[in-house]
């Protein structure tokens, strides 16, 4: 065998080590840089008025983001209420009922494809099936769009979490004379509870910052979100887009940064708290 000399090997090794550390530093550094920017510019606009007053029409000074904040919360929770129960059932089907493996594989595949669906297309889809027939932009349509985004994610995490539950648990529950339904809901789902919650909350934090599907569904408005089912509904992501791109005024950019800070804090808080409190429980393999 050819003998390689040691020096080039060591140099290559050194280069890889340095590049690896550099890659990690760069990624983490970029993350911190973005957060720092948002905090630095956003902190200036945070105030009592900013958080608790509604936004003003284009061009007038002052106002806050309270209506958009409430709108975002409404839209996001509406989406969760629609997507989560169904997605849990769908995940249970993939993990627990294994008599049609080919069908299950097909459904798993389509869920995976749906997870990679460009969110702007989801906006188009919901626009056609909901906004066009009713003739109204609404917060509800936006919730449906976000629900379409959430559904496959929750479905797949549910399946993954339930497959981690050891079969002995299922068998013991059935041996005690429980029906399949009861065994699944009270034993299997309960022991995977933390994992399921993690999946739901992480997908919630992910969709709450989504903008593209809201552009053609919720649109934007400067009023309080009273017409969730029938009127354009204020929300933070579209507010940020409007203020940052469609306005030459420094004041509005400034407010955009403030709204960006609020969104980022919300999303990251849910994300971090979920990761810290519900770390997925691993069963010994």
């Amino acid at each position: 065998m050819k003998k390689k000399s040691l020096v080039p090997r060591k140099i290559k090794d050194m280069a890889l080590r340095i590049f690896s550390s550099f890659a990690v530093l760069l990624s983490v550094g970029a993350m911190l840089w973005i957060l720092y920017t948002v905090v630095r510019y956003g902190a200036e606009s945070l105030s009592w008025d900013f958080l608790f007053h509604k936004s003003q029409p284009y061009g007038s000074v002052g106002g806050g983001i309270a209506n958009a904040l409430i709108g975002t919360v409404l839209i996001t929770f509406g989406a969760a209420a629609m997507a989560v129960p169904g997605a849990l059932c769908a995940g249970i089907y993939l993990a627990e009922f294994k008599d049609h493996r080919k069908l299950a594989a097909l459904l798993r595949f389509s869920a995976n494809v749906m997870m990679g669906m460009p969110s702007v297309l989801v906006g188009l889809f919901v626009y056609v099936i909901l906004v066009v027939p009713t003739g109204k932009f609404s917060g509800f349509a936006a919730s449906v769009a976000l629900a379409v985004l959430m559904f496959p994610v929750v479905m797949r995490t549910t399946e993954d979490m339930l497959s981690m539950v050891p079969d002995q648990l299922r068998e013991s529950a059935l041996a005690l004379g429980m029906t399949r339904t009861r065994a699944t809901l009270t034993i299997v789902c309960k022991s995977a509870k933390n994992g399921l919650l993690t999946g739901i909350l992480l997908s919630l934090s992910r969709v709450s910052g989504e903008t593209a599907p809201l552009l053609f569904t919720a649109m934007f408005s400067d009023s309080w979100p009273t017409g969730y089912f029938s009127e354009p509904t204020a929300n933070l992501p579209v507010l940020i887009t409007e203020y940052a791109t469609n306005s030459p005024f420094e004041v509005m950019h400034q407010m955009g940064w403030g709204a960006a800070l609020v969104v980022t804090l919300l999303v990251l808080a849910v994300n971090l708290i979920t990761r810290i409190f519900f770390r997925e429980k691993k069963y010994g393999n």
Partner: protein
Amino acid sequence: MGKKDTVFKLLCTGFALLSALLMLGFFLQLSLAGADAWKTFGLNFIFSSEWDPAAERFGALSAIVGTLATTVIALFFALPLAFAAALYLVDAAPAVGTVLSHAIDLLAAIPSVIYGMWGLFVLAPIMQDHVQAFFARIFKLENPGNGFGIFTAGVILSLMILPYICAVMRDVFKMTPAVLRESAYGIGCTKYEVAKDIVFRYGIRGILGGVFIGLGRALGETMAVLFVIGNLMEMPHSLFDSASTIASTIANNFAEADGLQRSALFAMGLILLAMSFGIQVLAQYYLHATGAKRGEK
């Protein structure tokens, strides 16, 4: 099985079928809504770069080129970085590795509109003043660009897809049997050689799967691109030109469009859907292959 069990099973099956129905629904609905444009322009729609709402002539080529160009740039930067970072994280001390992994995952948690704002107010000026000015000096370009364009969008996209690729690679690297790596170290391999000859070879399918996951993300990303690409419906001539991607075109024009233009936007949506579907199929194929190798399920 009792009656309740049957009902419960039917319920679960029904919701599971929903995922497939949704996927079909997307194809169906985008094809229907874009039918007018396909009928008017035929396949020429894909190969024409004309975009003239006044004359009602539309072509998707410049947006397709913009989409592909930004995606390639994003992958060019993100891939080596994600690979090297994953290599570091897998071998790092557990506490350090976990914290840094979570920190990189946070990049994926930041909403895309925040990337957009950061790109618009921070990155684009830096690109204009330093990076593009630098390239202009070296290559003696006449028009160094204004900071908005394909290159800036690609750089932002690379940051956005990095955590996804890195997460897949981390999982793949962890699957390499410890015995293999330890034996390699045991016969005196350096870390570089272990990475190149053991980890990379063993995980190549998983790595490809990760690449396609990242590609899918980059193709469909809308807001971050919309903020920094300049939104010009013209064929770009250099990396620093303003351009547009399919997703940004849809987001930018849909609200004001009607008639044939709206139909053209739906047709572009169908193209994007087909692209992202193809990429997801490849991603699933390679990731599934590693799953099988792992001996799971």
